[in-house]
């Protein structure tokens, strides 16, 4: 499991920009950013190269940040790549709460990120032949 940074934001002008500037100023690089938004508020999900440090910085700036463990899987960049992963999970009756993908600029594989509330998800994916990413694949684990 890797640590995703989740930030609760009010829907107000400039708040997301403050968030990203704060991380930028701290020299924290982002691999992926996704906003789940409703009319009233948003939840920003970020994969960074130092999640614990990012959370500390955001805490100090009165942002509401949490770390959420998510499953990250490397999938080959070809048609049907994601579908294969989802089928593997589906066969084991594992439900996905949300998912998103990102592509590292240097790599030829994409990374699919899943929020899954099943302890055996990573084992299922490995057994199906997928490469599940560890923290060290994305960042030097930086326990706060």
């Amino acid at each position: 499991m890797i640590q995703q940074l989740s930030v609760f934001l009010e829907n107000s002008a400039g708040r997301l920009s403050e968030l990203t500037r704060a991380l930028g100023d701290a020299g924290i690089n982002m691999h992926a950013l996704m906003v789940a938004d409703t009319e009233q508020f948003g939840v920003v999900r970020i994969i960074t190269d130092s999640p614990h440090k990012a959370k500390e910085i955001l805490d100090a700036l009165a942002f509401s940040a949490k770390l959420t463990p998510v499953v990250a899987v490397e999938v080959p960049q070809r048609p049907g790549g994601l579908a294969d992963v989802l089928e593997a999970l589906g066969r084991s009756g594992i439900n996905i709460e949300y998912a998103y993908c990102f592509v590292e600029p240097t790599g030829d594989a994409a990374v699919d990120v899943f929020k899954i509330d099943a302890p055996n998800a990573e084992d299922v994916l490995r057994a199906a032949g997928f490469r599940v990413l560890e923290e060290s694949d994305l960042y030097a684990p930086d326990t706060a």
Partner: protein
Amino acid sequence: MPRTQLEELQLKRLQDRLRAVYENVPLYREKFDAAGFDPDSLVTLEDLARVPFTVKDDMRSAYPYGMFAAPLRDIVRVHSSSGTTGQITVVGYTAGDIDRWADLMARTFASAGASADDVMQVTYGYGLFTGGLGAHYGSERLGALTIPVSGGNTKRQVQILKDFGVTVLACTPSYAVLIGETAKEMGIDPRDLPLRIGVFGAEPWSENMRRQIEDLLGITAIDIYGLSEIMGPGVASECVHQNGLHVFEDHFLIEILDPETLEAVPDGEYGEVVFTTLTKEGIPVIRYRTRDISRIIPGSCACGRTFRRMERITGRTDDMLIIRGVNVFPSQIEQVLAGVPGVARHYQLVLTKKGALDHVEVQVEVAPDFQFDEVRELERLQRKVKGDIESALAVSINVKLVEPKSIARSEGKAKRVLDLRNEQGGA
């Protein structure tokens, strides 16, 4: 004290005060004359119904010394109301008044379960506000070790609470929450401290909030009541049974009146609280309309005191909001929020107009421990808060979930309502 004996004492003191104000305060003489009321004609407590009321504007127009019934050379201290709604009002105390006030505050703390063995941190503001010095003198009269911290600098409050082994905290209930939250942020579990009693007043709070504070701080939280126009804190206090505030009826007469007809309502029914002071020399106040809404709790208290109990203040006639024709007290919202897991008790009510219609937005903080990664959970929380508030108020509202700790914390009285309806220029 048996009721009959109490009522004899009340009548004698009332007659005495009525004569004093008639002779010494032109405003009362004019009022009484205009109403055709002769102070000597009052022979029973029921006759009080014929006496004219005193209102906040009377106190304001008498600024600064117009209401004083004793010469300034006999006045040893003044305090004032906060003046948040306009001109401040000045109240004066003779040495005798200060002495009685200290007794009444000592009585308040004793009712709360405190004694000379306690260490009391007084965090009400010191100065013109009656809270700080009122509590201070009472705590000393009780014989408690008294720490006059006054308000502000919350981290220092926590440090003193911890280092000085404080057992009784006197402050506003919302500040007690801030102190508790601050302690936790400082890595101190307030439940581990020797603190055992909180004596809270100066703003309305709910039963739910009491339970939250008691849980947060690991204490017994006692509600007290007073207002600067009448004396300051020490007009009424809960006992350890926490079942209504015993009114100190040997010094204050309480009436509960229908705010429209100004007729007395039966015990148990809600109305406006009206007080008459029976022993004050500096500023005796006759039938003061407090604007506070409460009721007399019928029946006797397990503690054995014969003083009647008023319920905690449920709202104020002038805080009461009329939203789409419905009477709304902000305290109702607080009550609801305290019962919903996942949100903080902090909220702000923003009133605007959309066309001719009132629009209500309740901004509510998501609790810091809420698992907010789940958008569906957040939406469910929002719907729950909206539904619960709507059923409590009978008004449709919007709920805006805001970031934890984003609503301003108050060190004194919390400001909960932002009414912009008249600032938008026409409907």
